[in-house]
Every structure is written in structure tokens, then in C-alpha cells.
């Protein structure tokens, strides 16, 4: 077991996978400049700077993946992905199906997302639900260094296009990472804290906010279970339902805006599949349906914080039980 930051975990996963499989290459804006270690070890063929042109970066990745390479592209910031949307959604996500299975698209698109840098709405926008909605893609959004490493390695080995979001505020967060060829499967959630009164479901940095809320709730004698989804597509339905069936109460927490967000899907799923076991209505705590602000206090207010989560749980426990 090593302790490393999320950024180190990402670098370590990239180096290990490039060492393991010569078909893995990486390109994007400033990739070769900023990842000098990779550049030095693997050379200019496999670690490439590109023009500042997200559409051709993503398209080139899709074309290369179709013909047998396993590209990882760095699209820098999630909002830039809107420029790469055609290649990601219409090509990488659809062309396997349209070709009747003749081609596959083993590629990974990395992008930073989330509050923490004060750079405003054109560099900070949680777009994960857009990609979850697009067929043929997988979407992961880890919260710990351990998962960043294990999920990125799995994403690179996956034969499908994976959108890999890196919550900006987590980059320097450190944690233990198992030594060796550490893989975390895509599509499995993990219980970060066990509890029996309410389930707090989240992903990325708001998992930490849920854990802090759970600690505070514990001091009041309330036992909150915190479930970290890690993968948004495929979604670990079994893990989610198992937790909700145990606690009977659900609060979904994410930074992305509410309407048609991942929380809406989770709420619908739980109502469809576990309604008789619910003791109270499902609650969603999300960012507003507004662009992310730049001003730091506003940016922080955008993200559901631990006190708000705690309040939501207290209100939920006061709710009369569903008959």
C-alpha cells in the first residue's frame, strides 16, 4: 500500500498501462509538455501534444480506436467536451452499433470538472449526465486516489469509450493505493460508511461532504450509510437498491444541476424498484440549474455542503412514514 495523491494515482495508472500495452497512447493539449515523465519513457509517438482543437482530438481518438489503438485523450475541462461532443457521442458511442458490431472504440476521454478553482462557468460545468444519457458510452467519476488509479486502469483496458471525470478539487487529495496491478471494476459502487437510518448516495467530491455529514449525524445518534457510486454508467443498481432497502431513506447528492441529472435517474430507479421499502420521499441535493459562478463563496455555495446534507437528513427523518 502506498499513499499518493489523486494526480499521482492518475499518472501512475497511465504509466503502468502504457508499459503494459504498446497500443495505449495519449494525446491532448499540452499532454507531452505536462506529462514529461510519460514523454521521456514512451516517446513522442505515444505521448503527443495537439492543437487546441477538441473536436479533432476526440475524432482522432475515435478513428484510432476503431483501427486498433487504445487512445487516452485529455480534454482538460469538462465544458470543452461540448466541442468534442460529435466525436464522443455520434462516433465513439454509436458507430459500434451502426456497424453491426464490426468496430469497437476502446478509448478514454479525461476531463476535469467541478468547483475548486474559481475559473467560472466555461471551465467548470458538471456535464456527466449528458454522457450518461448517450448510448454506447461508459462514465466514471471516482472520489479516492485508490479508485482513480484502479478505475483509470480498467477504463484503458475496456473495449468501449469511457468518459473519465476528474473532480478538480480532488487532485491533491491523498489516500492509500494498493501496490501492484490494482484494478477497480467499472460499474461497482462502494459503501464508504455503513449505516441503517438513511442512505446518502453520491460520487466525486460530494462523497466527502456526505461522509462529513454522516459523522455529524452520528453524534445525534443517526446512522447514515454513504454509498460512492464511482461509475455512473453502468450504474450499480444492485448496490444502490441493497442500501436503500436496508435504510428505507435516500438522499442523493451531486454538484451537477438538478434537472435530468444523475440524481433524477437514481430517484426514479429506487421508486420503481424499492418503493414499498421507502419510509420517506427521496430527496435530491444538487447544484442549481444555473452556470457555475467564479466568485469563490458563490462557487462553494453552488455545491451541496455537509451542513445542508445534514439538514436534509434531519428533515427527512421528521417526515411521516409512507404508508
Amino acid at each position: 500500500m502506498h499513499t499518493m495523491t489523486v494526480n499521482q494515482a492518475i499518472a501512475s495508472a497511465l504509466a503502468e498501462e502504457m508499459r503494459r500495452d504498446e497500443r495505449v497512447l495519449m494525446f491532448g493539449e499540452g499532454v507531452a509538455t505536462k506529462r514529461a515523465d510519460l514523454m521521456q519513457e514512451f516517446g513522442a509517438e505515444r505521448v503527443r501534444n495537439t492543437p487546441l482543437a477538441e473536436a479533432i482530438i476526440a475524432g482522432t481518438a475515435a478513428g484510432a480506436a476503431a483501427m486498433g489503438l487504445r487512445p487516452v485523450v485529455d480534454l482538460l475541462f469538462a465544458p470543452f467536451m461540448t466541442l468534442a461532443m460529435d466525436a464522443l457521442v455520434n462516433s465513439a458511442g454509436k458507430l459500434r452499433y451502426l456497424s453491426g458490431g464490426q468496430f469497437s472504440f476502446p478509448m478514454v476521454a479525461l476531463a476535469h470538472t467541478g468547483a475548486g478553482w474559481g475559473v467560472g462557468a466555461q471551465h467548470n460545468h458538471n456535464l456527466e449526465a449528458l454522457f450518461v444519457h448517450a448510448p454506447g458510452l461508459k462514465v466514471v467519476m471516482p472520489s479516492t486516489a485508490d479508485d482513480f488509479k484502479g478505475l483509470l486502469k480498467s477504463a484503458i483496458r475496456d473495449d468501449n469509450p469511457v468518459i473519465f471525470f476528474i473532480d478538480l478539487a480532488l487532485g491533491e487529495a491523498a489516500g492509500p493505493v494498493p501496490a501492484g496491478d490494482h484494478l477497480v471494476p467499472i460499474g461497482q459502487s462502494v459503501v464508504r460508511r455503513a449505516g441503517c437510518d438513511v442512505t446518502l448516495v453520491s460520487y466525486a467530491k460530494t462523497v466527502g461532504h456526505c461522509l462529513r455529514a454522516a459523522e455529524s449525524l452520528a453524534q445525534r445518534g443517526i446512522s447514515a450509510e454513504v454509498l460512492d457510486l464511482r461509475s455512473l454508467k453502468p450504474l450499480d443498481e444492485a448496490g444502490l437498491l441493497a442500501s436503500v432497502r436496508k435504510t428505507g431513506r435516500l438522499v442523493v447528492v451531486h454538484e451537477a444541476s438538478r434537472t435530468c441529472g444523475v440524481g433524477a435517474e437514481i430517484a426514479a430507479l429506487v421508486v420503481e424498484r424499492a418503493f414499498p421499502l421507502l419510509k420517506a420521499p427521496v430527496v435530491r441535493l444538487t447544484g442549481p440549474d444555473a452556470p457555475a459562478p467564479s466568485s469563490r463563496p458563490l462557487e462553494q455555495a453552488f455545491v451541496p455542503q455537509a451542513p445542508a446534507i445534514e439538514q436534509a437528513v434531519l428533515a427527512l427523518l421528521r417526515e411521516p412514514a409512507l404508508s
Partner: protein
Amino acid sequence: MHRPLSDTEQVSMLEAMQLIRRHEERLAELQAAGRAAGTCTAVGQEAAAVGVVHALGADDLILTNHRSAGHLLARGADPGRLIAEILGRSTGYCKGKSGSLHVSARELGIVLTSTIVGGELSLAPGVALAQRMQGRPGVVACFFGDGAACEGIFHEALNLAVVWKLPVLFVCENNQWQAYVHRKETMPQDHVRPWAAAHGLPAVVVDGNDVEAVHAAARHAVDTIRVQGGPCFIEAVTYRLRGHFEPDDQGYVDADELTAWKSRDPIQLLARRLIDRGVLSEGEWAHVRQRVEATLDAAFAFAEASPFPSADELITDVYA
């Protein structure tokens, strides 16, 4: 210099062009009768398709666009399987999941067909990068129109292919039409070539209705790519003789312009040239046309007799 095309090769190219033409016309008839979904044809552009594709080798790959039937048939696609795909049958190249607009055929080196205008330009550098990095010799031919040339991705693709020295043959079939809009409304100049040339790659304009001229330019470009490594660009100036999306009454088309281009029909040009040279008799040309009809009779019969995919196929092939 390459040897000139032999008489046999030229007759074979004429037959390929006739097969493409009649495939599209017969499909349009089927659509007019309500027996097929609408498609985008490339009637009038057969010389560009056949001229370029016949200059490619077995290792070379093709990316194309929604007017792809010519490229597919020129590459040797089975007309029955192609029509089956267009009619949504399970015997089609993509099991009926692509329809007419996204046909790909890996066995023929047809790597994906895009109906997003410019989508093929987006993928082409990556396909070529995979060829290069995996030590495969093939050149990647990417067919697109003047409409795609007006998209930003055209410049992004050419720029990256030049900077990374990728083996891409960019083929702009300038057919004067961008869906329902004439090229003159959207482009200040007549040609795409200056935009391409500005990216610093060899770029030529060729008469896209003269299959010999297209073929010569394509042979030269493919050789250049094989020797020099980097990309080349060909603009084949041609004309879309039918509408954008069948059925289409072409009510928006300038009749004089259409008539002028019909008088330069690429199939008539080649047939007349071969007859004048004594390579082909009128009788032999009639025989070629009969053979094409027989091929298509069998192909349409095969396609229409083929089953539709079962509903189970709705969710297969989404993930690898």
C-alpha cells in the same frame, strides 16, 4: 509515371460506374414507390468514386459520407448485401442497423461512413495514425463534400494530418450542393483547393466527371503519400444530378445549370470515348448495361427476400 489504364480496365471502370448509377436510380424508384426509406444518392458523381477507389490498393482504407454507395460499390461491395442494408435487412453489411447512411464494411476496408457532415474528416487522422503506429502500409482515403469543407473540422483534420504527417488522401467531391443550398451561397470562391493548399499539403483540382483524370490524380496522390508519408488533397469538381434526399423534386435547382451538367454526364463521357476509340462497340456497351441490370435484379431480389432483424437486435452491439 504510371502506365495508362488498359482498355480492359477502362471498360471495367465504365461497368462499375453504370452499376453505381443504376443502383441509385433503382433505389430511388423503390423509394418513390414507398418501398424504401429515403436515401442520399450521388448520381453524377460516379467518376469521382470509381476514379479514386480504383487507384487504391487492397491495404488502403476508406472513410466516406452519406453519399457512399459509389465508394462502396467501387470497392467491390456486394450489391445484394448493400441493398439489404439500405432496406434494413439482417443480411446487410451492418445487420440492418445502419440503413443507407452509415454503411461500413470492415472486410472491404470501409471504416465507417458518417452522416454527420464532416464526421469522416474528424475520424480520418486517427485511422491513419493507427495505420502508421501499427506499421500497416495502407493509405486512408477520406471522401467528403464542399459542405463539409465549410466546417471547422475540415481545417482541424487537414492541419493535424499535415503536422503529424499522416497518410490521408483527402478527396473533396465538390458537387456544388450542400444539402438544399447551392455552394455559391456559402463559399466566396468556386474551389476548396485554396483552403486545403493553405495547410501546406499537395492539393489539386481535377475534372470530377472525367474518370481517367480523377484516376490519374488519385494514383499520383497515393504514390506521393506512400513516398512522402504526409497527406494529399484532391478536389474533384462534379455535380449532384439528383436531389439531396430521395424523393426530391429538385424544385430549387437552376434548370440551365442542371442541363449543362447532364451534358457532361461522366458515364456518357467515358462510354463515348471508348466507343470513339474503338475499344467498345455499341453492342458491347448495351451488353454491359444488360449485365448490370441482371446483377441488380438479383441483388434487389436477394435484399427484398431477406428477413428483417429480430427485435432482440435492438440492444445488441451497443457495447463491445
